[in-house]
C-alpha cells in the first residue's frame, strides 16, 4: 500500500492546501505552489479537496506503486511515462501494482504534480501534511523525498476513476514570459515614481535563486526616495522598521534583484514591500523557471479581487465538471 521512491528528482515534497493560521508565530503556510494544478489533480483522481499530493520541480521523480491505484499528473508540461509508455497528463490514469511512473525532460512550466487516489498519507502537523523543509516539519519526515523512501497511500479517495480529463481549453499554458497581477502598496511610497514605473515596465528574469521561499529576479535597478531613516529601520534606504511580509509580497533589497515571497515565505523583516502579487497568480510564478521572464501588471484592489474571483470560479466549475 505504498509508493516507493526510486529516484526523488531534484526537490520533490508532499504538499496540500497548506498550514493556515500560524503566520503570526512565524510559520508560513507552505502547501502547493501551483494551487490550480494541485486541486485539479485531486479532482481528477476523485480525492476530497485537500488530500496531499507530490510537488516536484524541474526533474520529475521515479515512483513505483505497490498497489493498484489511480494517479494524475498535472502542472508543468512534461512527458510522463508508466512502465515506459507515455501517459496523458491532466487526466486520471490507472496504474497496477509494480508499475513505475517516470518523467522525461520538462517542456514548459517548472513544477509537475502527482495526485494519487487516497492522497499521500503522512502525519498531520499543525493541521497540514505540507512539507516545510526550512525547519524540517510536515510532509515526509520534514524533508524532500530521497531514494528508498516508502510513502503510504491514504484513504481520502471519494471516487477514484481512470479517464477523467481536464478540458483542453482549461489546461494552463506556461509562456516563457509570465504575466502576474500586482497590487502596489505598503511601502511603495519609498520608491521614486520613476522606479515604481520601471518595476512594471521591466521584463524581469528569474535567477537561479528561485525556490518555495521566494523568487529572486534580475532586470533593472530601483531607487528609493532619500530620507532620514526612522528608529529601527537601519541605514539602508531599502529598509523600513520591521513588519510582517504578506505571502506574495515584493521586496527589493538594495534596490536590485527584487524578491517575490511564496508559500514558504520569510514571515517578516525590514525590507520595504512595494506591492503584493495577487494570490491566484502565484500559480503562474510557480510555473516559471530560472531564465524565464516575468512581467508585473498593476491592478487596483477591485481588479485584484476580480482576478481572484474569476480564477477560483473557474476552479469551482472544473471541479463540478469532474465528478
Amino acid at each position, binding site marked *: 500500500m505504498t509508493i516507493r521512491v526510486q529516484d526523488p528528482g*531534484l*526537490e520533490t515534497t508532499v504538499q496540500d492546501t497548506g498550514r493556515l493560521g500560524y503566520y503570526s508565530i512565524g510559520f508560513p503556510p507552505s502547501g502547493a505552489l501551483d494551487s490550480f494544478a494541485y486541486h485539479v489533480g485531486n479532482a481528477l483522481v476523485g480525492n476530497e479537496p485537500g488530500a496531499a499530493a507530490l510537488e516536484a*520541480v*524541474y*526533474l520529475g521523480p521515479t515512483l513505483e506503486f505497490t498497489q493498484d491505484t489511480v494517479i494524475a499528473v498535472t502542472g508543468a508540461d512534461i512527458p510522463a511515462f508508466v512502465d515506459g509508455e507515455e501517459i496523458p497528463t491532466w487526466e486520471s490514469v490507472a496504474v497496477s501494482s509494480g508499475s513505475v511512473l517516470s518523467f522525461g*525532460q*520538462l517542456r514548459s512550466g517548472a513544477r509537475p504534480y502527482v495526485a494519487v487516489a487516497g492522497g499521500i498519507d503522512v502525519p498531520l502537523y499543525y493541521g497540514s501534511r505540507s512539507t516545510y523543509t526550512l525547519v524540517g516539519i510536515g510532509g515526509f519526515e520534514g524533508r524532500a523525498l530521497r531514494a528508498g523512501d516508502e510513502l503510504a497511500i491514504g484513504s481520502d479517495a471519494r471516487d477514484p476513476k481512470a479517464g477523467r480529463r481536464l478540458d483542453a481549453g482549461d489546461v494552463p499554458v506556461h509562456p516563457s514570459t509570465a504575466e502576474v497581477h500586482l497590487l502596489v502598496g505598503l511601502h511603495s511610497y519609498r520608491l521614486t515614481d520613476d522606479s515604481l514605473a520601471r518595476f512594471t515596465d521591466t521584463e524581469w528574469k528569474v535567477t*537561479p*535563486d*528561485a*525556490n518555495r521561499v521566494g523568487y529572486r529576479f534580475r532586470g533593472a535597478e530601483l531607487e528609493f526616495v532619500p530620507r532620514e531613516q526612522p528608529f529601527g529601520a537601519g541605514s539602508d534606504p531599502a529598509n523600513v522598521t520591521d513588519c510582517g511580509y504578506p505571502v506574495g509580497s515584493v521586496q527589493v533589497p538594495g534596490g536590485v534583484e527584487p524578491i517575490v515571497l511564496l508559500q514558504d515565505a520569510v514571515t517578516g523583516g525590514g525590507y520595504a514591500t512595494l506591492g503584493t502579487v495577487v494570490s491566484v497568480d502565484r500559480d503562474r510564478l510557480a510555473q516559471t*523557471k*530560472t*531564465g524565464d521572464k516575468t512581467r508585473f501588471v498593476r491592478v487596483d484592489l477591485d481588479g485584484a479581487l476580480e482576478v481572484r474571483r474569476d480564477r477560483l470560479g473557474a476552479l469551482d466549475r472544473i471541479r463540478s465538471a469532474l465528478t
Partner: protein
Amino acid sequence: MGSHTITSRTPGVFYHRPSPDAEPYVTEGASVSEGDTVGLVEVMKTFHEVKADATGTVSKFLVENEDEVTIGQDLVELET
C-alpha cells in the same frame, strides 16, 4: 567515431568543479563512462550533478564555468 552531446536537465549555473578549490571533474581529452559526473548545475541553492549519458572522450565544453544554462542546453561534447 560519432559524437554525443550531454545536455542540461535543469536550469541553473554550470560549474566544472565540485568546489572552488577542487580539480575539474573532467577536462578536454579525458575519457568518461556512462554515469560519470562531468559537472554541476546549481539551482535553488542545491547542486545537481551532470552525468555522462554515453561513454566517450570529452572533445569540447560548450559552456564556460559559471555560465547560466537552460533545460536542454548543450553542455559537453563527447567523441564516442
